[in-house]
C-alpha cells in the first residue's frame, strides 16, 4: 500500500465489502431466494423442563443450495454448539464448520468438506490437530447435533410411505470428553416416511412430512425440510419450534 489514500481504500473494504466493485442495488439481495429463522425449545415430554434452546437462520440461494447457521444453549448438558452447514440443491452436504463447547470445556472446531465420494475433516482443539478422509456414498448427510437441519438427513427419501430406507450419517463426536476431537464416523441411518401431516406448534401451523428417524418421530417442512418437531419418547425428549419467520426475495 502506498500512502494514506491506499490505506483509506483498504478501510473502505473493511467497512463496506464490495462497495466499490458493484453498482448499488435497491431491490432484494439477488443471492437470497428464500430465508427462514427460528427458535426451538428443548424440553422433556413428561414435564415442562427447560433443557435449553436453539436458534437458526437459513438462506436458500438462487442455485438451490442452502446455508444453515445454528447455535444452541443445551444447558441441561452444559453444551454450546455453533454450526454452519451448507448443502446443495438436493440437500447433499457440501461443507460444515462447527465449534463445540462441552461440559469439560472447549472441545474444538472442525471444518468438514464433501467432494464427490470423499469427505475430509480437520479438527483443531485441545486434543490437537486431527485430519481424516472417509469414503462416503451418494446418500450421505452430516450430523452436527443442533436439530434445525436434522430434516436434511432424509434428503434421499424415495417418497414411499411406510418403507424403511437407509442412508449414511457422518456423525460428529460430541461427548464431553475433550480428549476426543470432534471428528465424525460414517454410520448407517434408518428412516421411514410415515406420511404428510399438518401439525401445530407454538410457532404456528405447518404442513409437514412425518418420519420415523430411527426411533424419533420428526416433522419437517416440505420445501426446505426445516425441523418443526422432534420427539423421542424412549429418552423423554422433544424439540419444538417456538418462533418462526420466513420470507422470499
Amino acid at each position, binding site marked *: 500500500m502506498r500512502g494514506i489514500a491506499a490505506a483509506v481504500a483498504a478501510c473502505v473494504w473493511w467497512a463496506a*465489502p464490495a*462497495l466499490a466493485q458493484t453498482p448499488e*442495488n435497491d431491490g432484494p439481495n439477488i443471492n437470497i431466494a428464500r430465508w427462514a429463522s427460528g427458535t426451538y425449545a428443548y424440553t422433556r415430554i413428561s414435564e415442562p423442563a427447560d433443557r435449553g434452546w436453539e436458534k437458526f437462520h437459513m438462506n436458500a440461494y438462487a442455485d438451490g443450495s442452502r446455508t444453515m*447457521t445454528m447455535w444452541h444453549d443445551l444447558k441441561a448438558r452444559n453444551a454450546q454448539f455453533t454450526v454452519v452447514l451448507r448443502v446443495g440443491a438436493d440437500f447433499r452436504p457440501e461443507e460444515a464448520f462447527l465449534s463445540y463447547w462441552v*461440559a469439560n*470445556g472447549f472441545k474444538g472446531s472442525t471444518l468438514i468438506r464433501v467432494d464427490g465420494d470423499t469427505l475430509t475433516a480437520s479438527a483443531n482443539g485441545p486434543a490437537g490437530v486431527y485430519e481424516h478422509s472417509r469414503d462416503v456414498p451418494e446418500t450421505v448427510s452430516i*450430523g452436527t447435533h443442533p436439530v434445525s437441519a436434522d430434516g436434511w438427513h432424509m434428503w434421499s427419501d424415495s417418497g414411499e410411505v411406510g418403507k424403511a430406507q437407509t442412508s449414511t450419517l457422518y456423525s460428529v463426536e460430541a*461427548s464431553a470428553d475433550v480428549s476426543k476431537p470432534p471428528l465424525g464416523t460414517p454410520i448407517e441411518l*434408518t428412516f421411514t416416511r410415515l406420511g404428510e401431516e399438518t401439525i401445530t406448534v407454538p410457532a404456528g401451523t405447518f404442513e409437514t412430512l412425518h418420519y420415523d428417524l430411527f426411533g424419533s418421530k420428526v416433522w419437517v417442512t416440505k420445501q426446505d425440510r426445516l425441523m418443526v418437531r422432534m420427539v423421542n419418547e424412549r429418552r423423554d425428549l422433544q424439540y419444538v419450534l417456538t418462533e418462526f419467520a420466513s420470507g422470499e426475495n
Partner: protein
Amino acid sequence: MNRFMFLLVMTALLPVSTVAAEPGENPNIVRWAEGTIIYRTIEAQRVRAVEKYRLNVHPDGSRTVIGHTDNFDAENTITMIHRVDEDFRPLESMVTYWQGGTFNGTGLFTVRGNTLHGVVDGPLGRVTHSLDVPDGLSIVPHPLATDSWHFWYYDKAKGGEQQAVIYNPQVSPRTGVPVLGHLETGMMTYEGTAEVTVPAGTFATEHFKLNGVIDVWMTGEDKLLVRYALPSADLEYVLTELTQGP
C-alpha cells in the same frame, strides 16, 4: 440393527454428551449478546443491509460470534463464525461469501501463535496459504459486528497514532482467489469516551478512528459495536437492536 447400533445412532442424532444433566445456567456461556446492525447512508438514511449476530463469551474469556449479513445494496451475503481469545486476538474465523448471485467460497482462517493458516474452498477448488503475523492482529470477516475488535492492542498509555494490522479476506476481488485474504496496515487513534445514541439505545462508548476517516464507537467489556461511520463516503453502520444476558 443391534442395540449397540441403536444407541450409536441415537447418540448421533440428538445433542447429548456423556455427563449427567445439571441444573441452572450453562457454564460455557458467561455472557451473551444478540444484536442487529443496519447499514445505511448518513444523509438520506437509506438502508443498504441488515446484519444479525449472536455473541457468546466463554469461561476462559474467549468469545464466539455467529453472524449473517444480507447486503442487498452490494449484492453480497455473508455468514461467519468468528472466535477470539480473552484479549480479542483472533483464534479462527470461518466465512462464506456470495456475491452477485455467485458463490465465491468458504474460508477458514486459523491463527496459531504468529502464523495464520488460510483454507479456502470455492469455484477454484481448495487454495491454502500460511502467513507470518504479528501479535497485534485482527481479522475482518466483513460482517461489522466484530469490526470494533480491531483496536484490542491499542496502547492507550502511549496514545497517538499506532499501527493496525488486519487480515482482510476478499469478498469480491477482481483478481486473485476469492475469499483468500491478505495483510493490510492502517493507523488507529483513540479519541476518548463518548455517549452515543443509536436506535438500540444510548451507550457509554469508547471512540477510535482508523486512518483519520473512520469512526468506531464501542461499548462494554465485550467491545460491542455501537456505530461505525465513514462520513466521507456517506456511510454508517448502527446498532438497531441489542439484547444481552445472563
